[in-house]
C-alpha cells in the first residue's frame, strides 16, 4: 500500500513537526523550565512510520520515546498539544481521547506492558475484531523476562500483534553490545516462530513499509512479527542522567537524521523543494512558539494542584 503524494507530504509534516516539538521540549528540560523528560530525539521516524501504517481502531501500546510522534502521526494530537502537555495544560499523548485513535498508555516499568499487549490482541480476536495490536518497547526492555513470555505466547496462539523494538543502542547507560551476546534482536523472532525484521529506524518510509507488511500479516491471521527499528539515541536516557559517551560519540549519534532522510527522499522524487520545506517548517515553528509561550505564561498558575484526599484515591482504586 504505497502512500500517495498528499500522504507523503503529510508524513513529512508530521516528522518535521515531531522533531521540532521534541527538540523544543528537550531544550526546555535542559534549561530547567520543564522536567522529567525522556527525550525522543532520534526516535521520530519510528513513531511516524508506524503511525501512518496503523488503522485508528488498531490498538497501539505506547513507549516513552516515540509515543508522542506516533500520536501526532495518527491524527487528533497537535504539536501544540504535545508541547502544552509538558506544561500540564493538555492531555498527554498517552491519554485515550473519546473518538480518537485507540491507544494504551505506557506503564512505568519497562517490558511489563508487553504481556498486556498480548492480552489486548487476544481479547480483540476473541471478540471477532480484525484489529491488530502494536506494542513498542526498547532494547533494554527486550531483555526482561516478561517480554520473552509475551512473545512466546503470541507465537503459539498466532495472535494479531506486532512487536516493535526501538533499539537505540543503550539501556540507560548499558550498551546493547554488553546487554546481549546476539548480533541483533530481530533474530530472536525465530525462537518464537515468527518473522523478525530489522529496519533503519531513521527511515520513516522503510519503517512504514515494514509495519504495513507486519500489520497485513497479523490481520490475515498469520501471526505476529518482531520488528527491530535500529536508531541512535541523540540525548542521554533522561534529563539529569549522565551519558557515558564522549562528545564525539554524541555528535556522531546525530549524523543519521530521520527528518533529513525523508526530506531528501521527497525532494529526489520531486514532491518537495527547499521553499516548500521551509514553508512547512515556518508553520511548525510558529505553532510550537505559540504553544511554548502559552505554556510558560500560565505555567505557575496551576503549579500547586489541590491535594488528593485519601478518600478520593481510594475511590479511584476500586471499581
Amino acid at each position, binding site marked *: 500500500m504505497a502512500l500517495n503524494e498528499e500522504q507523503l507530504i503529510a508524513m513529512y509534516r508530521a516528522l518535521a513537526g515531531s522533531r521540532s516539538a521534541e527538540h523544543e521540549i528537550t531544550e526546555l528540560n535542559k534549561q530547567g523550565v520543564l522536567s522529567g523528560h525522556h527525550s525522543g530525539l532520534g526516535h521520530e521516524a519510528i513513531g511516524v512510520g508506524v503511525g501512518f501504517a496503523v488503522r485508528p481502531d488498531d490498538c497501539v501500546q505506547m513507549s516513552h520515546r516515540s509515543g508522542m510522534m506516533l500520536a501526532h502521526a495518527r491524527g487528533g494530537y497537535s504539536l501544540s498539544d504535545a508541547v502544552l502537555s509538558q506544561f500540564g495544560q493538555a492531555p498527554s499523548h498517552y491519554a485515550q481521547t473519546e473518538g480518537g485513535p485507540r491507544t*494504551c498508555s505506557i506503564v512505568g516499568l519497562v517490558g511489563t506492558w508487553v504481556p498486556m499487549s498480548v*492480552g489486548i490482541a487476544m481479547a480483540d480476536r476473541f471478540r471477532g475484531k480484525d484489529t491488530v495490536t502494536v506494542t513498542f518497547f526498547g532494547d533494554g526492555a527486550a531483555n526482561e523476562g516478561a517480554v520473552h513470555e509475551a512473545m512466546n505466547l503470541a507465537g503459539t496462539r498466532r495472535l494479531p500483534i506486532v512487536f516493535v523494538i526501538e533499539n537505540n543502542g543503550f539501556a540507560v547507560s548499558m550498551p546493547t553490545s554488553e546487554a546481549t551476546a546476539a548480533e541483533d534482536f530481530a533474530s530472536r523472532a525465530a525462537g518464537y516462530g515468527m518473522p523478525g525484521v530489522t529496519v533503519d529506524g531513521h527511515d520513516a518510509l522503510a519503517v512504514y513499509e515494514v509495519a504495513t507488511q507486519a500489520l497485513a500479516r497479523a490481520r490475515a491471521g498469520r501471526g505476529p512479527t518482531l520488528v527491530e527499528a535500529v536508531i541512535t539515541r541523540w540525548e542521554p536516557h533522561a534529563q539529569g542522567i549522565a551519558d557515558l559517551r564522549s562528545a564525539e560519540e554524541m555528535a556522531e549519534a546525530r549524523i543519521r537524521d530521520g527528518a533529513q532522510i525523508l526530506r531528501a527522499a521527497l525532494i529526489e522524487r520531486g514532491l518537495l523543494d527547499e521553499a516548500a520545506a521551509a514553508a512547512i517548517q515556518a508553520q511548525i515553528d510558529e505553532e510550537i512558539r505559540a504553544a511554548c509561550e502559552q505554556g510558560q505564561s500560565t505555567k505557575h498558575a496551576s503549579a500547586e494542584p489541590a491535594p488528593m484526599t485519601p478518600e478520593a484515591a481510594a475511590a*479511584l482504586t476500586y471499581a
Partner: protein
Amino acid sequence: MADQNNKPRQLTYVMAINEAIRTVMQEQPNAFAAGEDIGGAGGVYGYYNGIQEQFGTDRVYDTPISEKGIVGLGVGAAATGCRPILDLMFIDFMGECMDEVANQLAKMRYMFGGSATLPVTLLTMAGAGASLAAQHSQSLEAWLCHLPGLKVVMAATPADAKGLIIAAARDDNPVIVIMMKTLLALNGEVPEDSYATPIGKANIVRPGENYTIVTWGRMVHEAITAAEQLARSGLDAEVIDARSLQPFDTETVIASVRKTHRAMVAHEAVRYGGLGGEVAAQIQELAFDDLDAPVARVGAPFAPVPFSPVLESAYVPNAETIVAEVRSQLRIEG
C-alpha cells in the same frame, strides 16, 4: 436440587470449583480461562476436568509455563472488555508474576484515573499438608492483602469455593481466590444453582459466647475441632471464617469480641508479619476496653515449610496448637 430423601446435594471442594468455573463461563460470554495444564489434563488438581471440552480452546487457553504472561495477558484482555479467569497452579508461583499482580493488576485502574476496569479472577492454591516442601506449600495471603487495588478471598468449604469464585467473576475488580489443596476432597453441601458468596462478609461458622477465634482457609476446620475441645473446659468459642481477607469484615469480628471479650487470630501462614497481626491490631484499636486478655495469635513458625511429613505435621498449626495457645493465653491449667 434435593434428592429423593430430600437431602441437600453434597459435592467435593474440587467439584465445587469445577462447577463454579462452568457456571461463570456459561453466564459470561466474555469470560475466558487461561492457565497451565487446564486443557485436556483438566488442571493438576482436576478442577478443570471437561471444561475445555465443553467450552473449546478459544475460551479455555492451556498456556505454556508463563506466569508473567498469563497475568499480563489477563490485565490487557480485561482492560479491553473480557473477563479473564486466570489460573496460578500454586500461590508459591506468585513470585513469578508479582510485578504483573502488584504493579499492573492492582494499580492499573488507579493509574488510568479510574477509566480502566479490570474484572480479573485469579484462582490459586495454597497451604501445606501434602508434603510438597518449601516452594509448593506456602500461605501467602498477607503478600496480596497489602496491595491496594486487589480483593483477596479464601475458601474453607465447597459451598464457599463455588460461591466465592462466582462472586469474584461477577466483581469488576481483580479478585484473587485462594483455595486450599488439602481441602480438595472435602465433601459438603453445595447448592446447584448459581449464587455468589458476598465478598467482604465473614461467616460465623460456630456461634459461641465467651471466646472468639478469627480464622480462614483450612484452619477454619481446625478451629471448629479446637472449639469442641475447649467446650470441655467451659469455653464456648465463636469461630469466624473471615472468608474475605481484603476487604476484611472488621464489623463482624468486633461485634463478636464485644460479646466474648477474648480473642485469637489463627492462620496457617507464618505468624510473623502474617495477617493475624493486622486483625489483632484492629481488635485492640476498636475494642480495647472490651478485652479481658491480649489477643492471641496462632501461625506457623518463622521457617520454610518442611518436606518431611513428620516435620511438616509439627510445623503446620492445627487444633492442638490452637487449644494450647488458648490455655496459655487464659492461663488455664491442665
